[in-house]
């Protein structure tokens, strides 16, 4: 399988900062993977995301060395607007992302700006609505939506550009648990049914870790652990870094269950099958 994202020896220092936010980072993400990036506040995970969609170096000023190749193109040499058709970006606070008067107009906004034909715009809007399950919100204004609905609309709006990769920076942190779970399972479904690559930055590993096929842990601007979530998050080192490991995993550590027999579970479902 080809790598859809390749980060090579990447170092980036924001203008005015003394130390790099990311240093000597290498990362390969295969097409169709579901990656969770985590780590203590200030570890560089948001900066890494900004490098994937070209906001760095084109929008945020600073010094960049190394290379970021996304879907075969070098982000340094590609405009953010061109990259936006490959990499969709979702922020923590969807309010900052919604601009139109109603949901349907919101979804049509980006493809209209690309100058696509009317029919194509209509098809894309309908497809995105269906993928995310927001048909019933079609004529609602952004302010009439709950936080979880706003976030789903923001995701649908990005999907109208048909990106290959979806990058989400703590998309659930303002949401109640049920709305948050809905977003996370939605992403899992988009990943499974459409093969879209998902790159999710999160602190709430209880909620997201079990859906991912790889967890990347960062600290001080570097990737320090990378691997299958049950393995990566089991290491005491990761817990000592201040990463909030899932409570179920913590419980298994507390029980001192022999790790060689069972991989540590991430969810109550996995745990009950090991225990009983």
């Amino acid at each position, binding site marked *: 399988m080809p790598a859809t994202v390749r980060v090579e020896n990447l170092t980036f220092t924001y203008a005015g900062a003394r130390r790099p936010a990311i240093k000597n980072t290498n990362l390969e993400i295969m097409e169709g993977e579901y990656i969770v990036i985590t780590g203590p*506040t200030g570890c560089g995970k948001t900066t890494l995301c900004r490098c994937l969609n070209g906001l760095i170096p084109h929008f945020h000023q600073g010094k960049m060395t190394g290379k970021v190749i996304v879907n075969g193109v070098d982000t340094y040499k590609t405009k953010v607007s061109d990259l936006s058709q490959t990499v969709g970006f979702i922020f923590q606070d969807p309010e900052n992302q919604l601009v139109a008067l109603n949901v349907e107009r919101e979804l049509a906004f980006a493809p209209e700006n690309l100058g696509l034909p009317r029919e194509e715009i209509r098809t894309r809007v309908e497809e995105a609505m269906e993928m995310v399950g927001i048909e019933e919100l079609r004529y609602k204004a952004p302010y009439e939506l709950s936080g979880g609905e706003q976030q789903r609309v923001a995701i649908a709006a990005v999907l109208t550009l048909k990106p290959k990769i979806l990058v989400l920076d703590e998309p659930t942190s303002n949401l109640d648990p049920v709305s948050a779970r809905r977003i996370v399972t939605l992403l899992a479904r988009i990943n499974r049914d459409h093969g879209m690559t998902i790159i999710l930055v999160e602190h709430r590993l209880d909620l997201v870790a079990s859906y991912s096929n790889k967890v990347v842990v960062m600290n001080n601007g570097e990737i320090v652990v990378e691997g299958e979530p049950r393995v990566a998050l089991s290491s005491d080192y990761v817990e000592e870094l201040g990463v909030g490991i899932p409570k179920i995993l913590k*419980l298994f550590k507390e029980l001192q269950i022999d790790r060689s027999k069972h991989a540590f579970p991430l969810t*109550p479902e996995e745990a009950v099958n090991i225990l009983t």
Partner: protein
Amino acid sequence: MITAEEIWFTYPDGPTALRGVSLRIRDRELVAIMGENGAGKTTLVKHFNGLLRPQEGSVTVDGLNTLQVSVAELARKVGYVFQNADHQLFSETVYSEVAFALNNFGYPEKETRRRVQQVLRLLDLEKYRNSSPFSLSGGERKRVALASTLCFDPEIIVLDEPTIGQDGSQKKKLGELIHSFNLEGKTVIVVTHDVEFAAEYAQRIVAMARGRIIADGPSKKVLTNPKILEECALLAPQATQLAQRISERVKGFPTELVSVEEVASAIREFLGG
């Protein structure tokens, strides 16, 4: 003590956010107010420091009716830390942000310096003393907002979604901090949808949905009750979910457990693990 009696509140041109809420919070309690987005949690706690006044019903804080006292008077008693730090922060440096309230309350310069220093150390913000609050990360800005409230030492501290954007170790630190305020005799009210955090630190949970209180009781009762959780768009803590699943297979396994330690010891007892 805070007493809310049958309070109703509707935002201008907006929804009715509170529909007859009655609640009593005694001194030295540590309470979490939980519920789905839009349940009315923030609207409720904004009544405790006079930022909002009830349109019907009454709120009294230590015997003072909030309709009859100024926000300034209440602000010293009830420190409110906003959910969105950007609604609270405005100064050029972290130091002046934190010192602002103290200057306003007329503390002498030397005392202000001492208190700011102390609270910046407590919240691990010393290194940002001369930085602009707006150059910090979201999680750090939230800690600055917390610092600017803690420094004037209010008797009642209200924290609105303090765990958002905080990593595991900061969350733990925050929880321990809240716990220690409580031990010092302060009343702490935390608005949160973080069930794991509430399970670990709150003694009492007030669960809200659609402008009403749905349940009010010890966290062991509220966070383990599927009906309440569903109505308030909450999920049980992971440890509770595991206990409930084990109980479906192991007769007599307790289900009213919320912490990792409790569930671990029940597993040792029942399954000999």
